[in-house]
Structures are given as C-alpha cells and as structure tokens.
C-alpha cells in the first residue's frame, strides 16, 4: 500500500512533538494554531529535522528509524516539500527553478501549471499565485513519492487566496500521491483535504473528515477551531431524554448529547437562525438580546447576539431589516447543540 507512515517524537522549544500518522493516496491536512509543531512534522519527514525517536516510512521504504539508526539525507528521500514562502531560488529563472532537480519533466510541468510564458522570469517578478505554481511544479519535477505543503496559502493576501485555493485543490485532486499539508486555517483544510487532524502543542487532538470534526468535536479546542460558538455551563439530565444546560448567565439550553456536570456548548453559526419575534418552529433553544455586531461577508451576514454568532444570508438580513442594536431572537435546535464535557487536561481550564 502506498502510504506515508510516521510515529515520531521530537523535542521542540516549549513542548515535545509526539505523534503518529498514516497518510494514503489522499490529501491530509494537519491543522493547528501557529507554534503547534506542524512545520516540524514536515521537516522531520523531509529529512531537515531529526526526530529523537521513532520511525518514518514511505511506500515501505524506511526514511528514518531511530532504533535501526537509519536517517536518509533529504536528497535521497524523494519527498517534495513546498515551503511556506515557496523558497524559490531568486538567482534563477522560473524554468531553472523547475529544472533544478533534473531537466526531464520541466517543460511539461511549466505547461501543466500554466507558467510556460513565465519560463524566463525571475521569482521576484511573479505574483503570489504564480510563485505557488512554480513552487509546486518544482517540487513535483523530481517525481516525489509524497508531497508536503507548508501553509500553502499563508503567503497570499485575502484577495488572491480563494482563487489560488481553488487552483491548488484542482492540482491536489489530480495527484496520485500522499499529500500532507499543514495550515492554521480550518477553512483551508476543509476545502483542500480529505482528512484532517487537529494538532495542539505537538499532539494530535482529533483526526477525521472535516465533517466528522464539525459534527463531533472531541474537545473545546477542536470545537472553537472549527468555527463553533462556545458557551459554558452545567449539564444535567432532564425529562424527555434531553440534557439541560444552565449557562453561566443563568439561561437554559437543551441538547440531545448526553453529559453531566461542567460542559462547553458548541453551536455552529450556520445552525443558528435569527428572527425578530420568537418563532414557533422546532428549535428548542432561544437567546434573546440586542444585536451587538453585524458583519456582512459577501452574500452572508454574521449576526452577534449575546455570546452567540449566527450566520444568515445577506438577503434574510435585508428582508428583516436587521441593524446593530435591534432586539432579536437567535434560535437553534437541541440536535445542533453539541456538548463537550470539560476535562481538566483539555486546555487546562477547570
């Protein structure tokens, strides 16, 4: 089976990176806040950082094995790495960059990545999107057995980001390789990856498809990282098989999840609806209050009511004539109210 497998430990400045991963012929995203050790994982796989213990194999080939004292140098690993700022050689043309690992596939790759017309240009003359295409073409030019991408979109401004992301997705979907990318942006991971793992302080918190993580975040960090509203309270069993949560401000919510004691409540913005009057729909949970902020993002509007952010279409916001300061009701179903039991080891919160 064609996979990249690793199980490594590597001491970093303020914590110890310790994780095991297996990536098949898929795009796998390692997401986490900056400083979580994501880049170190890529460096260890590429041979640029040496783990303290563990083993890394690619298609059954041993790249690193601390016990067997195997540590293949980077140039022998056949692992393509696209650096965060692409690390294109500034003294070479685009063509020379792509041909750096061997001339054979350069022309074909320049065409495939639509950079043929830039062959004689220097990296300094390229836009962010073009530089990324050169970086990808260069990494793929040596026929790697796996492709690693370090924050592939972070060097881009917001304006070009979504276009480049769509382009990158297209490229990755057509690659028949294990692809491991790291990003601090969950949204990028959702768009690009088949599977996602959340990493915090050098350890994996949860691994699954993006929808797995959204549906059942394993802890508070994963919930907030995936974009959920977080409210804290105390849970107890109530009638009808539901769990009743008393929030810190005294209001009451219901959830279909089972929990007892201190909990965090995760609610995704797109599962919150906003109305002027309490509605008689199936939603059990209501939060009343003035709109404290109203931000339009394209065709959507994010409405903040109390500690809760709801996302509605811009058309709905217009139809309701929503303005900052208006008194509204935010509603969401008990089935959309996820409970995450607070444990002492998660995030260190009591």
């Amino acid at each position, binding site marked *: 089976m064609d996979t990249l497998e690793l199980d490594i430990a590597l001491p970093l400045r303020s914590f110890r990176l310790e994780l095991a991963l297996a990536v098949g012929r898929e795009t796998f995203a390692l997401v986490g806040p900056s400083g979580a050790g994501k880049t170190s994982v890529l460096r260890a796989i590429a041979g640029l950082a040496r783990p303290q213990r563990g083993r890394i194999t690619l298609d059954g080939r041993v790249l690193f094995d601390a016990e067997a004292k195997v540590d293949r140098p*980077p*140039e022998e690993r056949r692992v393509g790495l696209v650096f*965060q700022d692409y690390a294109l050689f500034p*003294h070479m043309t685009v063509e020379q960059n792509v041909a*750096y*690992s061997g001339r054979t596939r350069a022309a074909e790759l320049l065409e495939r990545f639509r950079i043929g017309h830039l062959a004689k240009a220097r990296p300094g003359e390229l836009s962010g999107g073009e530089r990324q295409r050169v970086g990808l073409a*260069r990494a793929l030019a*040596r026929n790697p057995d796996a492709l690693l991408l370090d924050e592939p979109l972070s060097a881009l401004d917001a304006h070009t980001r979504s276009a480049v992301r769509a382009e990158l997705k297209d490229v990755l979907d057509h690659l028949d390789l294990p692809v491991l990318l790291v990003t601090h942006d969950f949204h990028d991971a959702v768009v690009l990856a088949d599977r996602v793992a959340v990493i915090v302080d050098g350890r994996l918190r949860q691994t699954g498809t993006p929808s797995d993580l959204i549906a059942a975040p394993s802890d508070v960090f994963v919930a907030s990282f995936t974009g959920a509203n977080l409210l804290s309270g105390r849970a107890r069993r109530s009638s009808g098989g539901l769990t009743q949560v008393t929030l810190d401000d005294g209001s009451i919510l219901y959830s279909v999840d089972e929990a007892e004691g201190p909990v965090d409540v995760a609610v995704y913005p797109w599962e919150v609806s906003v109305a002027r009057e309490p509605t008689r729909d199936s939603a059990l949970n209501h939060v009343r209050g003035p709109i404290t902020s109203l931000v339009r993002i394209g065709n959507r509007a994010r409405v903040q009511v109390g500690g809760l952010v709801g996302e509605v279409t811009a058309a709905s916001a217009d139809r309701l004539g929503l303005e900052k300061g208006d008194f509204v009701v935010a509603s969401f179903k008990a089935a959309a109210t996820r409970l995450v039991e607070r444990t002492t080891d998660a995030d260190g919160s009591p």
Partner: protein
Amino acid sequence: MSRSDRAGRWRRSLFFALLALATALALAFFLLPLVAIFLRVPPGDLVAQLGSEVAVDALVVTLKANAIAQALILALGTPAAYFIASRRFRGRALVITLVELPLVLPPAVAGLALLAAFGRLGLLGGTFEALGVEVSFTQTAVVLAVAYVASPFYIRQAIASFEALDQPLLDASRTLGAGPARTFFRIALPLAAKGLSAGAALSFARGIGEFGATIMFAGSLQGVTQTLSLAIYAQFDLDFDVALALGALLVIVSAAILLTVKLLPAWTRSNSTSLFPFARFGSS
C-alpha cells in the same frame, strides 16, 4: 518672533555649523597628504619614475605575490567560512576568534611569528630544509605574509555572507535532490557572491599594502621580495621622487579597490533578482 525663539534657532544653527566644520576638517586631514603626493611630483615625472627598474620590479613582485595569496585565501577561506557559518559546534566562537586574530596582531609580530614557524631555525624549518625548500626571504615568504595578514578580512566577510543566506533556500535545494556539495555550488555560492566579492576586495587592499610582516619574514630584496610598500621604504633615502611615484600608484590602486567595493552591491542588485524585491512582493 520672540527673543528666546531667535536665540534657540541661532543655537541650533551654530550646532550644525560645528558638526559641518568637524566633518570638513576630518576630510581635509585625510585628503591633504594624498593631494600633496600628486603635487610634489609633476604627472610627467610620475609616469617616468614608474618606468624605473625598481618600480617595475616592485610592481611585478606585488602583483604576483598578491595574486597567489588571494587565490590561496579564496580557495581555503571560502570552504572554511561556509563550514563555520553553517555548522553549530562546540568551540565555534573560539574558532571565529582565532580566525580574526591576525586582524589585531601587530604586523611585525605576525612576521616574527611566521619566521619562528617557517624560518630556517623555526619550528618547521628542519622539515622544509629536509625537503630542500627555503621559505624565509623568498617570494614564498611574501605570499605567506600577505595571506596571513589579509585572509581574516575575507573570511570574516565570507562567514557573514553565508550566515545571511536564507536557510529555506538551502533546505529546498536538498529536498530537490541536491547533496550538500551541489547545494553549496549552485545556491550558497551564487547567492553569497556579492558579499564574497566585497570581502575579497578588502583583503586584496590589505594585501597590496602589506609591509610589517613582509619585511620581517621576507626581507626587501629588489626583484624577489621587494613589494611596492617595501620599495617606498627603500627608496625613501635614495630617491624621494621614486618613493612618491610608487606612493601615488598605491593611492590610485587603493582608491580603485574602495570604489569597486562601494559599487559592487549596486550592480549586482541591478542584474540579478536579489532577495529584496522578492521579500517586497511576498508581503504585498
């Protein structure tokens, strides 16, 4: 305008006038002696004196010894600087300090030390004698003296240039299948070239003017070990005009080297894509 306003403005003007005066005095102090050399000797005589046997011999010895010394400095100094710049090892700070030692060592002491090491009665004198090689008071000694005092200028600058390289570029080269040697020749060397050239020019300037170590270790034999600086000293009592002509030549050579160093960054930036525009695009 109030009186105190006017007084304040006057005080500020006076301060800047004093700064300008200090600058002018310093410049005059530097330039006057150099101008004097050219004023003492009419340009026609200057050229004529340079045709004298002493001058030609000194020029040949200087150029030959410096060319060989610079080749040695580049050939040994470049890999040494790359090693020191790219590795973290115990005693690294000590190694750097030792490399810089000849910078602060009085040249006469350097010459004495070379004599003690390679001279006929020196530490390795017996070895050289057995091999039939005479070092001290030969042209080899001139080369060694120049290399000894001039190499730190190059190595220091080379270490700094290699340390300033963008590490991801070197890493990228490795992941693209290039070993450490290929990475050095294709990435590190071209990207550090600007700094290395500046270092080489500085060490060349130092080597051309070498005096103290050379006279101790190599002596001042016309046509063999007598460099331009040594010839100036020798001609000082014999023919002051020849000394002045040689001095004028060295002034011109030194000025040309300084100018090269100053202009170097300008033209390397214009005909290659340096890291600066790269970084600027990246942040836009």
